[in-house]
């Protein structure tokens, strides 16, 4: 599933989209249920990313191949 590889900021952006779509309304029942499922998964992904996050540090020096 795409959720597993999603970065935090991507997941938040997706979650915001889901909320915005639901907020706008005009959805079929089917659509809103699909969005609900997606939103629930995304918020879980976000939380999980926050729990397990460890700041990554990469050094990009001039002597490294670019």
């Amino acid at each position: 599933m795409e959720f597993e590889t999603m970065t935090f900021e991507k997941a938040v952006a997706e979650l915001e989209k889901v909320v915005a779509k639901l907020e706008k309304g005009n959805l079929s029942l089917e659509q809103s249920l699909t969005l609900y499922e997606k939103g629930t998964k995304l918020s879980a992904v976000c939380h999980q990313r926050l729990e397990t996050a460890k700041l990554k540090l990469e050094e990009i020096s001039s002597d490294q191949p670019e």
Partner: protein
Amino acid sequence: MPSYSVSEVNRFIKQIFAAEDIFYGLHIRGEISNFVNHVRSGHFYFTLKDQTSSIKCVMFRSNASRLPFLPENGMNVILRGDVQVFERDGVYQVYVADIQPDGTGALYMAYEQLKKKLDAEGLFDPQRKRPLPPYPGAIGVITSKTGAALQDILNILRRRYPVCTVKLFPALVQGEQAPESIIQAFARANRTPLDLVIVGRGGGSLEDLWAFNDEGVARAIAGCRVPVISAVGHEVDYTIADFAADLRAPTPSAAAELAVPDIVNLRTMIDNYAEMVYNYTVSSLQNGEQQLDSLSTRLMARAPGAVLEHSCHSLESLDSRLHLSFEGMYGRCGQRFAAAAGMLESLSPLKVLTRGYSITFDKSGKIARSAEQLKPGNRITTRFHDGEVVSVVAEKEE
């Protein structure tokens, strides 16, 4: 009588000047005028003057190129140089080694000049400032690999927003090579996928921070592909880099805080989103239910039995409406009749009789309007409102 050539005279005078120690390493105070920056040669030519006097000056490229600022007419300066003779023209002039602005420092002068120039170019235009991304995934940091600034930035990011990746572009942030090193780091940053760049160093003296007042550095900041936060640790003074950056932070720690949201707020925010998703879905389900209810009500209303029932209802209702309208009409006629009758009655002479008047008729049935019409012995009929009496005239008075 011996005669000398012009060259000989000039050479002789030149030798006199050259032999005098006092003409070397002189400090001369005055105002610059007639300044010419000879672009091709890179030499400066000008006149230094005070209220009553002036002296020609030349500053050759080797010295001129080391000046951090550009001399201007009207600038009060203190020159250091040697006064010597220019043999070809037979003039003495100052061969300038260095110029210091009188009153302010040379660095400050350079700073003001560069700021003015870049500002005029629109490099600091507020409209150029880009908003920071709300959730940066990759943050570029351009600073010294060993400086405290990097550790400050990493500490804040670790605490507030550990989901991001920091890409460090090591650069010298002090000394003569610092500007070029920072510019190179920006070039590498522009080739790396990033959401944001923090460039800076910890505090220091004005000279320590000088790389951040470099024109090339300012242009690299303004030309960066992604938004740049400047973080030159010097709370009070603004560097040129600060003006060129999209956002200025007073310290590297502050830059890190400005760069990212706080994880605590993030958790709340995500919970809020999850709740919104839930609420919207529930309300959309409820909407669905309501729609279903209303549809089934409408459907039931159109079932064959219901239609028939409905027809009966409407027939009945038509019936009663007919009845009602008829009654109404009838009632209205009655009212009109009563009104007309009332009117008629009020006009009737008979009405007068009820107030105590009566009408007298003679024997032939004519109304007796005058006593003259009647004689004693005549039969008369008197009409009251409720009947008539017949009587005989007993006597007549005139």
